[in-house]
């Protein structure tokens, strides 16, 4: 078990390092002069004095060989220093830390809604003996993943805020303000969870061990919960790990639709003014969040499936 944990930890660190490297390659090496872009504060402003540009190049180390720049930046990043935002001059880590709380609230709420709706729908759809109801319920997830998130947000605002005046349409204020954005963000995610869980539930219900349980005289509820769901939960859990990154990224769109402050809003602003250090910080943070969540999922996994830890120890006969 300790080996398993250590191996997963080492993998997580390696992925983070590589994510930093990829973002460095994308942002610092692709065509385009970062300094003039940064100094110009965007694509559509007047060019600056060449002497100023040269000084800035030196300050940011862009006059050095690429690999030296990389090592320098990597060393700083390892100590938690991702440089300063070009637009505001404040440390990238501070900007992210400040923007994070509302986004965390949003993604956590959305994840909760998504798991409850997704798992509930999949479980009930595969349980009900009524064929038409099952078909109808199982077609919902396919619809959910096909709708553009921002459009769902706009429709919800139109219906619930403008027509029915139930909930506020915009802004960060309180729990009521969280409902619509979280609902919007939860739609595609719950659809994804429902799809995967329904599929693995149907597969599990077809397994011979379910027939064994039926032959014991077990009732449908017992078979569904004790046998099928316990086995089907494993792939669904993996998906929950995978969607957390999407939720975080989805906050970019949702915060923009609902004019909420948060990490997504900050990212949009950073991209618009080509604030390279901040964009890089966000990318690495996204990867870190993804890695952390999946680390947690990996550690929960052995509790649900006894075969996982053993896989490293013995080969199945």
């Amino acid at each position: 078990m300790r080996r398993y944990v250590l191996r997963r930890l080492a993998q997580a660190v390696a992925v983070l390092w590589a994510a930093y490297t990829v973002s460095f390659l994308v942002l610092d090496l692709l065509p385009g002069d970062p300094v003039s872009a940064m100094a110009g504060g965007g694509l559509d402003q007047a060019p600056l004095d060449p002497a100023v540009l040269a000084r800035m190049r030196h300050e940011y180390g862009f006059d050095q060989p690429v690999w030296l720049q990389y090592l320098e930046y990597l060393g700083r990043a390892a100590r938690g220093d991702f440089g300063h935002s070009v637009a505001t001059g404040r440390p990238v880590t501070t900007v992210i830390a400040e923007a994070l709380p509302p986004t965390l609230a949003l993604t956590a709420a959305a994840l909760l809604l998504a798991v409850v709706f997704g798992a509930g729908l999949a479980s009930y759809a595969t349980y009900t003996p009524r064929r038409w109801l099952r078909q109808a319920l199982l077609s919902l997830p396919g619809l959910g993943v096909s709708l553009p998130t921002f459009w769902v947000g706009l429709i919800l605002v139109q219906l619930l805020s403008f027509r029915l005046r139930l909930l506020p349409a915009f802004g960060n204020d309180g729990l009521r303000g969280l409902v619509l954005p979280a609902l919007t963000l939860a739609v595609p995610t719950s659809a994804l969870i429902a799809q995967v869980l329904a599929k693995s539930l149907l597969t599990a219900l077809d397994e011979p061990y379910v027939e064994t349980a039926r032959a014991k005289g077990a009732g449908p509820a017992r078979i569904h919960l004790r046998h099928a769901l316990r086995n089907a939960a494993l792939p669904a859990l993996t998906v929950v790990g995978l969607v957390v990154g999407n939720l975080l990224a989805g906050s970019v769109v949702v915060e923009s639709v609902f004019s909420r402050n948060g990490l997504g809003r900050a990212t949009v602003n950073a991209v618009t003014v080509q604030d390279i250090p901040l964009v890089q910080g966000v990318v690495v943070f996204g990867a870190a969040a993804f890695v952390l969540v999946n680390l947690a999922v990996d550690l929960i996994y052995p509790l649900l499936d006894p075969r996982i830890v053993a896989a490293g120890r013995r080969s199945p006969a």
Partner: protein
Amino acid sequence: MSELLDIRGLRVSYGTRGGAITAVDNLDLAVRPGEVVAVVGESGSGKSTTAHAVIGLLPPNARVDGGSIRFEGRELAGASDRELRAVRGARIGLVPQDPTVSLNPVTRIGDQVAEALRVHGLADRRSATVEAVELLERAGLPDPAVRARQYPYELSGGMRQRALIAVAIAARPRLIIADEPTSALDVTVQRRILDHLDALVRESGAAMLLITHDLGIAADRAHRVVVMSQGRAVEAGPTRTVLDVPRHPYTRGLLAAAPSLSVTDRVAPKHLPDGAALVTVEGVSKEFPLPRVNGGSRTVRAVDEVSFDIRRGETFALVGESGSGKSTTARLVLRLTEPTAGRITFAGADVTHARGPALRALRRRAQLIYQNPYASLDPRFTVAKIVTEPLRAFGVGDRASRLARARDLVDRVALPSSALDRRPAQLSGGQRQRVAIARSLALSPDLVVCDEPVSALDVSVQDQVLRLLAQLQADTGVAYLFISHDLAVVRQIADRVAVMKDGRIVETATAAQLFDSPRHEYTRELLDAIPGRRATPL
């Protein structure tokens, strides 16, 4: 005596897109208390469907169209799910087909046995746990208390089947349905488990409905036999009567084809083992690395200093249970894996480490027929393309002459020439294996390795394919290295036999010597385990 189970005029059909397909047609079957009744048939005969109809576990697209299933005087056909649940497990126990997938992988063995008691309210949580251990012990599982706390993946196939037997007998049912209970297991394990199941059934006074494709098993275990074909019972009666004086032609065909019951009937004429050696294998070993544990690397010896030779034109058989190393040995001969030690020569040339041109020369002269004919044929290729692929690879002939050769080969394996344009999915299992045989003969090789070539086929098809192999050998003088777990099949075709166990050859002898006077104890054990030996004295 009144019947425990009385099936009258049962009809079951499956709804498919092509319309309804009748799986069981007007079946009559009765089981008396304490009696063992075997239902024998090939795949698709409806025997499994019958078993599932009895406990109301038919798949959703299946329907009971008519007839009655009376059990202990109650009608089960058309009974509600609630009524059936009270019968399942409590009055009728099921021993399923494949023990490796029939236990819930994430639940402890003991809990799964206890569940059978708990759902019928026969025990509370605490007493169920205790009783589960007792049941596992009765099912013949060693260390039952330890096993009860383990998960299925920690048990071997045989142990899992014992756990499933414990589940089936838990509530002391009056009828046990065993659906091919041992077809997924090695023969020696199969025998021990059937013996144990027999004893348990007898001591509890329950009856057993034994579903099997193996006439030998039915002959050994059942009081009465029902032979099914295409959904109908073609013959039924006391075991001895059915086997000794079969009346229906289908039963006669089945009996003639069943390798375990037809002792004298060899499909191949015996060769005199005096040909020159084609292949010699000297002290060959193969080690596989095991997954690393705590930094240390370990290896497992799959093949351990094996020596034998194969003479031109003969059939040399390697026999053993799963894990004995027989398939790995075959792959070593074909140079599909690198030996760890030893020396292999083919037609006088050392091919132990052959590569490049020498390896291609070997490929041209040694071919392989796989166990699963479907997996070994590219699903996208037509039969013509499959059969001519070796010719193409070696640049033999032009397109037209290759096609002519394909026509000839397909004809030789007794397939119609219309088969040339078909794809594997459009052929039956036996036809697919014929295509694989045609491909292996395309280059007129000296040696064909047959790796369990008939074990995926029904017995009547098995017989046809074995006869074809023998015929082709007589025509072309090809030598076979015949790999099999089934001594009964080997007896029909092999000239010489080597018995493998744990990577070693324990005995090599001519077929006659080996079957008449086996010297090694393990060989005797294997011979004893062949089903049908009790019924037909050798």
